[in-house]
């Protein structure tokens, strides 16, 4: 494991972690080792979660014999580290593989290749009893508060089931009385009433159901939580409640999150670091302030410029990305973003973009990007790009949750 990988400062939130490309695609020479490596985190500066070259392909079968004719490359070699106590936000459009990544890390989907280390233990290699023991330490909160709770179980069983599954002599969760108390405790921890344990999921609102889902995950005392778009199905006013709850729980229990979302404001609010995915690859990762103030990948720039500004007087011209997201079954050669890249157009279509897959290189400390020309991005270049776009009047169509990247309409940009 290379030394520049991650460490955290004593405070626990101001984290300086490097996302690692692990197996030598980059000479990651720039980043100095983080401060206080030895003293800060319990795992000797080792990240709690380390994802290394993770690949998840969905095979495509065709023909009468159902032969294997190709793969949907949902996650195609993603490497990243999450230090203990950090919240890593993962953004990208629909179908870019961010949810698949989260589920593959938790072994809810079988990985094609790669490694996932939880506290140094290889998650993908464990089976049977070992895997079950490991599952206690990593849990998930789902997007859909309706389908994530079994409609035929009372809340006490929904939360208690994991306790039964993980019961042993030491924790005593096999006993009904112990379990009931614990279920009640965790309901209170997530801000619900103890006696809700008797009720069924359909008796709750979306936000309450999401809290139940969080309680279910939390009751097993996990260290690592994958939040798979936990607020995107909720009302905006409820979204903030759940986000604050997640932040509080992180502080109280010292949790580590992989926070998957497509809402850029949500990710900005909750994350310490942000990773941007496009077509199964990580294209940029940086501490949250750095990513939002100084995006270095043309795709990130386009994403960020699509965030609507709550100011009706602001007249903007649109920067529209060409075309649709290509099929992950047949990704473009070289840089996967090149057919839609506005920067490439500005630079006069350099050949490199089409032929060479850009390495995920470290631009500044902790700021990594997979673009050959990341240094060329500036306000001037962006303004030029916008100026060349056809003049489309500012649309007043705003999705209910503000910045829904999942809509099929093209990503547009606000200059400057």
């Amino acid at each position, binding site marked *: 494991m290379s030394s520049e990988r991650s460490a955290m400062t004593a405070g*626990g939130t101001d984290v300086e972690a490097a996302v690692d490309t692990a197996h030598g695609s980059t000479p990651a020479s720039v980043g100095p080792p983080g401060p206080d490596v030895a003293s800060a*985190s*319990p795992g000797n500066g080792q990240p709690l979660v380390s994802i290394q070259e993770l690949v998840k392909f969905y095979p495509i079968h065709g023909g009468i014999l159902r032969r294997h004719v190709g793969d949907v490359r949902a996650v195609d070699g993603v490497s990243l580290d999450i230090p*203990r*106590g950090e919240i890593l936000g993962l953004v990208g459009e629909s179908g870019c593989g961010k949810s698949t990544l989260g*589920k593959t890390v*938790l072994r*809810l989907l079988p990985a094609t290749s790669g490694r996932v280390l939880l506290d140094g233990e290889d998650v993908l290699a464990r089976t049977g009893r070992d*895997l*079950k023991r490991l*599952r*206690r*330490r*990593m*849990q*998930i909160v*789902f997007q*859909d508060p309706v*389908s*994530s*709770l*079994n*409609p*035929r*179980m*009372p809340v006490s069983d929904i939360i208690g*089931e*994991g306790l039964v*599954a*993980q019961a042993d002599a030491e*924790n005593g969760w096999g006993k009904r009385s112990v379990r009931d108390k614990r279920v009640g*405790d*965790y309901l*209170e*921890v997530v*801000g*619900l*009433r103890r*006696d*809700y344990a*008797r*009720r*069924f999921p*359909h008796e709750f609102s979306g936000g*309450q159901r999401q809290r139940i*889902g969080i309680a*279910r*995950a939390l009751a097993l*005392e*996990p*260290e690592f939580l994958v939040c798979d778009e936990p607020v995107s199905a909720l009302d905006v*006013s409820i979204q903030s*409640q759940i986000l*604050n*709850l997640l932040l*509080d729980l992180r502080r*109280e*229990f*010292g*949790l580590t999150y992989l926070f998957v979302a497509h809402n850029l404001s949500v990710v900005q609010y909750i994350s310490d670091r942000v990773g941007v995915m496009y077509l199964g690859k990580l294209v940029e990762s940086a501490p949250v302030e750095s990513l939002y103030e100084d995006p270095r990948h043309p795709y990130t720039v386009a994403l960020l410029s699509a965030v609507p500004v709550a100011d009706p007087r602001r007249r903007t011209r649109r920067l529209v990305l060409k075309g649709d997201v290509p099929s992950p079954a047949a990704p473009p050669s070289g840089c996967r973003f090149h057919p839609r890249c506005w920067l490439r157009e500005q630079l006069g279509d350099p050949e490199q973009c089409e032929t060479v897959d850009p390495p995920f290189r470290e631009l500044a400390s902790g700021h990594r990007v997979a673009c050959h020309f990341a240094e060329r991005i500036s306000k001037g270049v962006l303004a030029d790009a916008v100026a060349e776009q056809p003049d489309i009047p500012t649309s007043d169509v705003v999705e209910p949750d503000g910045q829904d990247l999942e809509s099929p309409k093209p990503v547009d940009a606000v200059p400057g």
Partner: protein
Amino acid sequence: MTDPRDPHTHDEVVDDLVARRDEAVTDLMRSPPEGADGAFVDHYAPGAPDADAEYEVALESLSQWQLARRRFRRHRLAMVGLVIFSLMLGVAIVGPIVQPYEFTNIPGASRQGGDPPSLEHVFGTTREGRDVFELVINGARISMAVGLFSMLIAGFMGVLVGSLAGYFGGWVDNGLMRVVDVLFAIPFLFIILVAARFFGQGQVSSLILIFGLLSWPLIARLVRASFLSLREADFVDAARAVGVSDLRIAFRHILPNALGPVIVAMTLLMASTIILEAFVSFLNFGIQETQVSWGNALANAQSALILGNWWWAFFPGMAIALTVIAINFIGDGLRDALDPRSRA
């Protein structure tokens, strides 16, 4: 920062949070927040709008099964169905005790083609002078037994095979579904006729076995289809994430949610089996002629209908229809009662 692996620390944090919440609740009760807008930020405060105490009293001590039973009892049609069905079942069991004429004692008809309903023969008589009321009572035994037991066999087999195929998928699914395809592809009647010869003709038990073993593929397909869609549900992933075993997931999470359409299909299956038995008996491949079922009573009555002797066909037919409807009502009631989302 605390190490979350230490169970004591974790529990302490929980205790602390719970205590703080309790404190917040008592504070709030002592001095409720001013102003009407309750949209305040502290999510450790009690879930404000949900305090409908009345509702809780109702739910206080009822278990899942008690709730289901209560929902069933409040389902009017289901209760009607249950009463009719119990009556029929009672007749089938104690029938020979209450029947007015012995099976072997044929009172004889005064009119050629059979007597119409009268005080002596409330349902009339057959051409041979047999009392139709006696036919209906005696027929209940075989008809109900064939319908009920073949339904149970088909239900058990269907749920088992469908669950295995749907949950495991892959080659398990492929293998089992090809068996199902084969069973669907061979003409149903043909197998029944051959099997009736093979298993021993005229045996009620062999009829039950044949019907049961031939009709499960329908149920299996239904169960499999539900499993395939429910397998992808988030709550199944959640259960796997907390370490619940495959078997438990299949039976505790997926099956209960897949059962609704299966129950309805099973009641329909029972109805169609009763009718099928009539048909097979009519072709002389079913029960022996010396035995009586609603089906063969109906079949034998066909010639009498031309003469206008409606009663011979009407009463066994009504018995079949009533039973089938009753079973369907019960099926509907069960489906609703087992679904916690339906109103209690």
